[in-house]
């Protein structure tokens, strides 16, 4: 495949089609609507299912239904839409069916605005719905990476029968970048053996999140926890930049993560030995690696487009091994290289 100039939203949508997406149910919301628009054409062209639902509540329940039937299914949205989906997300988790959701984060709370933000971090990693569960959350920082992560998301969702979210932001969705799409994969012809496909000639499969009786539901929860422990042990992903000899450690993900690669370049030019850890999974979180790097560093600077949500996970991981500072921009403001540099220089001076 050759490189193309692709918009993030179109890229994730086309990557899903090529990874054998069979059905998409969604409701438009900026800054992800080009993804839905692209699928409205492409899925029909391929003879698959595209449906624009009457709301996000309807969309997520259609996704839930298709997932129960063993269909490779996804939806995409942004913060306000994701909030409407919360009930369905919890049912999906309780029923242990594989679902992929792209969330192009925008400024909140409330209707907020349509600029890039990262303030859905806690929502996605810690409280996507009622009950004890966590989605696996992937965090791309470029158009190429969101393409690659769509394939990975389906793989992980089906491997663990779990909910996988891709945490993009308005910038990833709206940006065009040169990237390469995967080759077209055929749609799966078989259904998983747990799927509800009609029980003719076999024992019936039952998929439900209803488990009456406390002990019964506790057993289900313990099984979920066991699975999450397995995810946590196996699926932590991150990228490091120049961390080998780093005195200072930057931690940032997504759009801010790539901005911080520029900060590393500039800081090194200015003689400050800084390295960057960019989490590629927000849950499970790279806590062991962060602890290890913090132990070798004089200080840590966390940068987010939020008031400090990932910051709490970093604090827990670092556990006092190094002083931590935070640079956050809110409401859709994207932090610039120079302002991060200023905080980095301050941290450098303070910890010398």
């Amino acid at each position, binding site marked *: 495949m050759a490189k193309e100039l692709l918009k993030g939203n179109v890229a994730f949508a086309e990557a899903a089609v090529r990874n054998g997406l069979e059905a998409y149910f969604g409701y438009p919301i900026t800054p992800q609507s080009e993804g839905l628009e692209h699928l409205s054409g492409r899925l029909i062209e391929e003879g698959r299912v595209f449906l624009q639902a009457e709301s996000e509540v309807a969309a997520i329940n259609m996704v839930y239904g298709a997932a129960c039937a063993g269909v490779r299914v996804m939806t995409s949205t942004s913060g306000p839409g994701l909030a409407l989906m919360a009930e369905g997300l919890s049912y999906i988790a309780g029923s242990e069916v594989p679902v992929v959701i792209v969330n192009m984060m925008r400024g909140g709370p409330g209707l907020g605005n349509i600029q890039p933000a990262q303030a859905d971090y806690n929502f996605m990693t810690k409280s996507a719905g009622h009950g004890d569960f966590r989605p696996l959350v992937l965090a791309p920082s470029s158009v190429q990476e969101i393409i690659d992560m769509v394939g990975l998301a389906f793989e992980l969702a089906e491997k663990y029968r779990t909910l996988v979210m891709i945490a993009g932001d308005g910038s990833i969705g709206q940006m*065009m970048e040169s990237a390469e799409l995967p080759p077209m994969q055929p749609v799966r012809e078989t259904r998983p053996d747990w799927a509800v496909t009609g029980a003719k000639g076999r024992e019936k499969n039952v998929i439900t999140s209803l488990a009456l009786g406390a002990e019964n539901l506790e057993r289900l929860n313990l099984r979920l926890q066991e699975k999450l422990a397995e995810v946590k042990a196996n699926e932590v992903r991150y990228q490091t930049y120049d961390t080998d000899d780093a005195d200072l450690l930057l931690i940032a993900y997504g759009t801010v993560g*790539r901005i911080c690669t520029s900060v590393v*370049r500039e800081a090194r030019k200015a003689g400050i030995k800084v390295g960057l850890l960019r989490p590629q999974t927000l849950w499970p979180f790279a806590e062991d690696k962060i602890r290890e790097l913090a132990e070798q560093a004089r200080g840590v600077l966390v940068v987010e487009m939020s008031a400090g949500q990932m910051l709490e996970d970093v604090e827990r991981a670092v556990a006092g091994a190094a002083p931590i500072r935070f640079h956050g921009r809110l409401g859709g403001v994207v932090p610039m290289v120079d302002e991060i540099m200023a905080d980095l220089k301050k941290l450098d001076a303070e910890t010398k």
Partner: protein
Amino acid sequence: MRHEETIFSGFGGQGALFAGQLLAYSGMAEDLHVTWIPSYGPEMRGGTANCTVIVSEMEIGAPIIRHPTAAVVLNLPSMEKYEPLVKPGGVLVVNTSLVDIESERDDIRVIALPASDIAEELGNARMANVVALGALIEATGLVDFETVEQQLEEHLSERQREWLKPNKKALHEGAARAKSE
């Protein structure tokens, strides 16, 4: 090393976003790293539209920048916003057909040309974006003109095919004006 961080800005409809895309496609065709990111706020409707294009031999970190190495300003609000932000040593292309103030910067190269009028003489004032792009490329040497012509051929939409030749002319006319500046 080839590396340019350019902001294209104008009224909605002036083609600032398309000129930026044309540069991004051209960079990609020459195997450079490229990013193109638009301003997409609803508050922009009817106001200015701008995009940031980075073309570089290096992998691109931040796709959004405060101080561009070059700016193409097609109208007055864009001039007022971006003229002060261009990095020292950078390039500013000004469409004087719609900008009636002069730059006071002496630490950047200012190319002032009546892009809309030039485009109108070539048949359509809407080609002002391509005139300005020609001036930018002449001043920065970022990509080859041949590459831009190829990308015009590939990305000018079907219904605008008749404007292919005039657009090529517009590109070179912009370059010629920049050279004589």
